[in-house]
């Protein structure tokens, strides 16, 4: 881990390059996809590391239906893309995952997908119902991590969707169906607790253990749903603890688009969590200091590090390094300790183009350097 102030990390998924989408479908690259591939290869020099996969992709025979070679290339591309931006912690842009909900749920037994649900505007995601007891035949993401570990030049950090979010984003049929009579508030709470704990113990914990056994040292547990029901913050923590207790790794909890004050102090009981990675930039504006909420951690005497969202993932305009530095400066003041600050995007950059996302990441790294030059001393 870097001993500089304000090390930088990614937080989640990246947009899929067109060449990946076509390649995974077994289709030859069109002119736009070829140009995109070649342009990024000139900048990052990644494709020469997997020459057979590159040649197959460019020759229009990207290993047919399996798409494994294309996925390897895409994962390597994301690694080099994040490293080139100057990040200290990286992953593969979740290049092999459909998205953060569907991917883990497809690895488990007990779920049935029901159809598309709107997230916003004309963006949708597939949502599943749990119709039987959650079971996992074999841990997931292990091969994905081993690929990253083998090739990464910066420190890998594995994102894993947390049990509370998986439960909250699913329809609870099985566990709720076991409750008798009217499925009111009390029945729903009891059923949700069973569901979260089963997910944590039967699916996520075995996966974390397998990752750690293969050398994984840093895991980011994504719990974006935590903010939707602040009165269930204790259940978020119960799931987190059930998944991580006794495991030997650094665990980060990522929460976004939430009223963090409403989650405190309950969240502080997440025993193995050593960093909060939270979104702020989206709501930071002139006249509204989004980082002020960090004062709450100080009030509670919490001394964990903070992954500070300093670039907005929902808007195209690229933050200047000066804006990033200003955000870090304010956060350091509210937190009372600059040495506990990491910087990251608010959330995954998947909704931005690769060009915009890279510019934002570079601004993030440059902004951190500006703040470092000003605030000085190394991390403790």
């Amino acid at each position, binding site marked *: 881990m870097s001993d500089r102030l304000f090390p930088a990390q990614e937080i989640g998924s990246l947009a899929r390059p067109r060449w990946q989408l076509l390649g995974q479908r077994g289709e030859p690259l069109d002119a736009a996809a070829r140009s995109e591939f070649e342009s990024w290869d000139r900048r990052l020099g990644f494709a020469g590391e997997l020459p057979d996969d590159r040649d197959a992709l460019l020759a229009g025979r990207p290993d047919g239906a399996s798409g494994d070679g294309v996925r390897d290339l895409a994962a390597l591309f994301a690694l080099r893309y994040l490293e080139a931006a100057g990040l200290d912690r990286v992953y593969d842009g979740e290049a092999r995952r459909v998205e953060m909900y569907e991917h883990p749920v497809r690895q488990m037994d007990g779920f049935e997908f*029901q*159809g*598309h*649900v*709107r*997230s*916003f*505007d*004309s963006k*949708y995601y597939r*949502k599943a*119902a749990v119709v039987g007891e959650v079971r996992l035949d074999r841990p997931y993401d292990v091969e994905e991590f081993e690929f990253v570990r083998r090739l990464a030049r910066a420190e890998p950090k594995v994102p894993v969707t947390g049990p509370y979010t998986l439960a*909250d*984003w699913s*329809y*609870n*049929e099985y566990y*709720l*169906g076991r409750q008798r*009579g*009217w*499925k*009111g*508030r*009390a029945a*729903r709470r009891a059923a949700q607790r069973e569901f979260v704990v089963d997910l944590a113990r039967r699916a996520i914990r075995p996966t974390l253990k397998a990752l750690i056994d293969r050398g994984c040292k840093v895991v980011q547990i994504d719990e*974006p*749903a935590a*903010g*939707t*029901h602040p009165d269930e913050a204790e259940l978020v923590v119960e799931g987190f603890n059930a998944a991580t207790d006794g495991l030997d790794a650094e665990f980060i909890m990522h929460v*976004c*688009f*939430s009223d963090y004050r409403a989650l405190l102090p309950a969240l502080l009981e997440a025993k193995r969590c050593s960093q909060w990675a939270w979104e702020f930039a*989206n*709501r930071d504006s002139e*006249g509204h200091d989004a980082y002020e909420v960090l004062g709450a951690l100080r009030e509670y005497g919490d001394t964990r590090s903070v992954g500070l969202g300093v670039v*907005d993932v*929902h*808007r195209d305009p690229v933050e200047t390094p000066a804006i990033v530095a200003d955000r870090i400066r304010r956060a350091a003041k509210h937190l009372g300790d600059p040495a506990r600050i990491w910087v990251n995007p608010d959330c995954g950059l998947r909704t931005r183009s690769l060009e915009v996302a890279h510019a934002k990441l570079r601004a993030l790294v440059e902004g951190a350097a500006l703040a470092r030059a000003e605030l000085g001393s190394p991390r403790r």
Partner: protein
Amino acid sequence: MDVLTGLTSPFPRSEALVKATRDLDRGRATPDAVEAVYRSAELEVAALERRLGCSTRTAGYLRWPDLFRAFAETWEGFSVGPLTRWFETNTFYRQPILLAPPIRVPGAFAARLPPPLAADPAGARILLPGPYTFAGILDNRSGETDFALVHRLGRLLADEVRELRGRGFATFQFTDPLLVARPPEGPRAEAVVEAYGSIGRACDGGTSIVWTFGGDAVPAIRLLDRLPASVVGIDLAETDVERIPRDGERTTIGLGVLDPRTTLAEDPTDVVRVVRAAAERRGARTVWLGPGASLDLLPPAPAVRKLEVLPDVQRRLRTGGER
């Protein structure tokens, strides 16, 4: 017991509409082609509402990105802000930013209503944001205090209702979940009562419905009782029937009896039991039943399965069977 039923929120988009709107975003479909899919999907929802015997019709409000966009994009004083997570689900809305005191633009909201509603305005249910939730979810940079804003939004929504009354519409639902999720107190509560007073006067013989969900209604029940509305709806997935106070002067109440957070279809016997218990505790003789939270949290198939429970429940409650 008199029982009325109906949709209380946008209906889920069909897979055909999901595909069409995605294709439009990606430049693979023309607006005209997508418009044809919208029209077909709206007629399907209207037909479903007829088949289920719904007392009011919505045609699904399938075109609406969220409850507030029609105003944020058309009323003066607003701009459309960043994606913001809805307070109790994994869905997002673009947060309206209020830069100056808002000014209503006549005709702008009416132009965004589902086209099939114009054919039978008297039977339509118009969905509008409640003034308290509207004020609570926006980014207020106008300089107005929160409760002055609730007042102002109440007056503007009342003007909207007046215009729509003039077009023949008669039933207006104000979706106001924050009333129970974050109940207002003191001057804010008074501002809410006055805002609904403005709206109630504008209804002028029509029906005004305040629909809440996303929280236990019991702590807010005294305020809800004071709202000058024809019907106030509470979500029985969030509110324990046994804790609803045994008083109240409304003879008509609204009850959210379908829970769109789960695909598990409700058992009609359970629904009949809780509706009877809630009506008895409130002394109500007429109930409006529907989904509690927004039905578009579900895909269409399980949403229809849930709605299909309502006619059976309605029949049993009307005939007094299966006590």
